[in-house]
């Protein structure tokens, strides 16, 4: 593809100048101008000097025409280049979307098969354990506990992978931001050990809140999942006693300062992470915990769900100094959106 960058134009101009001076030097060297003048005198009768002038004028006009055409051509090439880049980008996005859909189908099919395969262990395992308990055979009871635990863990992985892969299943509705966050945090508080103090800021003490109605586009189940995973991680990073601080304030989306947002910061006094770990925490199956403590998909799911909410997530951490997770969720224009109605239907 032709390149019309400033550097190339300067190079071409320098090249032209060099050619010009080389030709000029040659003309002077061979005394071209004097010889040409004498030549035109010889043919004065046919107005050779006027013809030569006209020819030079014509060449000059051609030159100007060429320069204008090149400039137009340059514009067209740049436009073509840009369109080509957009096409490549679009093809890439399309391919990625198709890959995601294919992966989703694969995950769904795989989940079905694996759930079937887990059925005997999870369905009958407890009866075997009961039988072994009656026989009083502790050694085999322990074996059975490991088998059941492992199968339960496998089932959790499948559920998490499905959640991660089946994004199309999530439905959103406008929800009161503070109420949703308040309710979720209150629920999650009960899951933390009593040795960990949960503090909140930005909400009035005792979980009261500003009456202003701030709407976010939200799926409450996914919201709960986001906060549960984050608070669970924060709790596990704290050795016995510690604090988790949650602050909530109005802010702007990091990538678009014109979009107002609800900013939630979750800071813990846990063990923190080094830069290498921070760079990898959202990678699927990456975990700093023991395999029995998690699937390594918790934060991957958090990031996916936050992005599904058009939100943003950032992590700040230092080894030995705790971690801060910063979430931003865009606030909806309440002139355009209304609170979702509740409906509850279960078979």
């Amino acid at each position, binding site marked *: 593809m032709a390149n019309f960058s400033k550097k190339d134009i300067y190079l071409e101009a320098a090249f032209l100048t060099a050619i010009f001076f080389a030709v000029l030097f040659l003309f002077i060297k061979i005394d071209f101008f004097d010889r040409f003048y004498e030549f035109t005198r010889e043919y004065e009768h046919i107005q050779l000097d006027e013809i030569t002038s006209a020819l030079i004028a014509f060449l000059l006009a051609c030159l100007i025409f060429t320069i204008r055409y090149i400039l137009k051509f340059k514009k067209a090439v740049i436009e073509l280049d840009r369109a080509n880049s957009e096409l490549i980008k679009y093809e890439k996005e399309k391919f990625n979307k198709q890959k995601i859909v294919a992966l989703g189908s694969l995950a769904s099919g795989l989940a*079905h098969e694996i759930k*079937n395969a887990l059925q005997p262990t999870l*369905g009958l395992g407890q009866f075997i354990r009961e039988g072994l308990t009656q026989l009083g055979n502790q050694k085999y009871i322990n074996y059975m506990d490991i088998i059941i635990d492992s199968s339960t863990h496998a089932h959790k992985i499948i559920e998490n992978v499905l959640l991660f892969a089946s994004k199309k299943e999530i439905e959103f509705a406008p929800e009161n931001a503070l109420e949703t966050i308040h309710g979720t945090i209150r629920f999650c508080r009960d899951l933390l050990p009593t040795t960990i103090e949960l503090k909140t800021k930005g909400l009035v003490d005792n979980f009261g809140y500003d009456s202003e109605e701030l709407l976010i586009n939200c799926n409450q189940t996914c919201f709960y999942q986001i906060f549960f995973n984050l608070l669970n991680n924060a709790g596990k990073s704290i050795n016995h006693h510690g604090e988790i601080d949650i602050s909530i304030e109005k802010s702007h989306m990091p990538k678009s300062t014109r979009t107002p947002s609800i900013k939630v910061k979750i800071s813990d006094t846990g063990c923190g992470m080094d830069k290498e770990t921070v760079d990898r925490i959202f990678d699927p199956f990456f975990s700093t915990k023991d395999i029995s403590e998690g699937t390594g998909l918790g934060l991957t799911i958090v990031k996916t769900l936050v992005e599904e909410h058009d939100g943003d997530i950032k992590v700040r951490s230092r080894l030995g100094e705790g971690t801060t997770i910063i979430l931003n969720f865009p606030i909806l224009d309440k002139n355009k959106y209304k609170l979702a109605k509740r409906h509850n239907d279960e078979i």
Partner: protein
Amino acid sequence: MRFEDLNVVLVEDDSNVKMTIKYMLEEMDVKEVMDFESAMDALKYLDEHINRTDLILCDWNMPQKSGLELLREIRQVKPNMPFVMVTARADKDSVMLAKEEHITAYISKPVTFDGLRTKINVILNKKM
């Protein structure tokens, strides 16, 4: 109706899953469990014995005839037959589809003993 009075028809193409659910039902002391590995075989049995059947537990994904297709055929003959779909699918679309077909209940795989017992209990209580 009690668990001891229940005549159950179980339809599941995966034999390990089928036997697991059958054993769980037997642990609940149900009266009888007739198990089949295809909807076609289940239909042949139900053609003659539908009136003595109290509950159908059926897998969703099966070759040739799916659980949903079996449900539709059963609903034409006995609209009030308690029909529980046993499925690995728990997505919204599948749930909506199941509701539209007037399924009695669905239970997600892998099925646990307590989960299955609770679900059947709810159905028995509704029947009463």
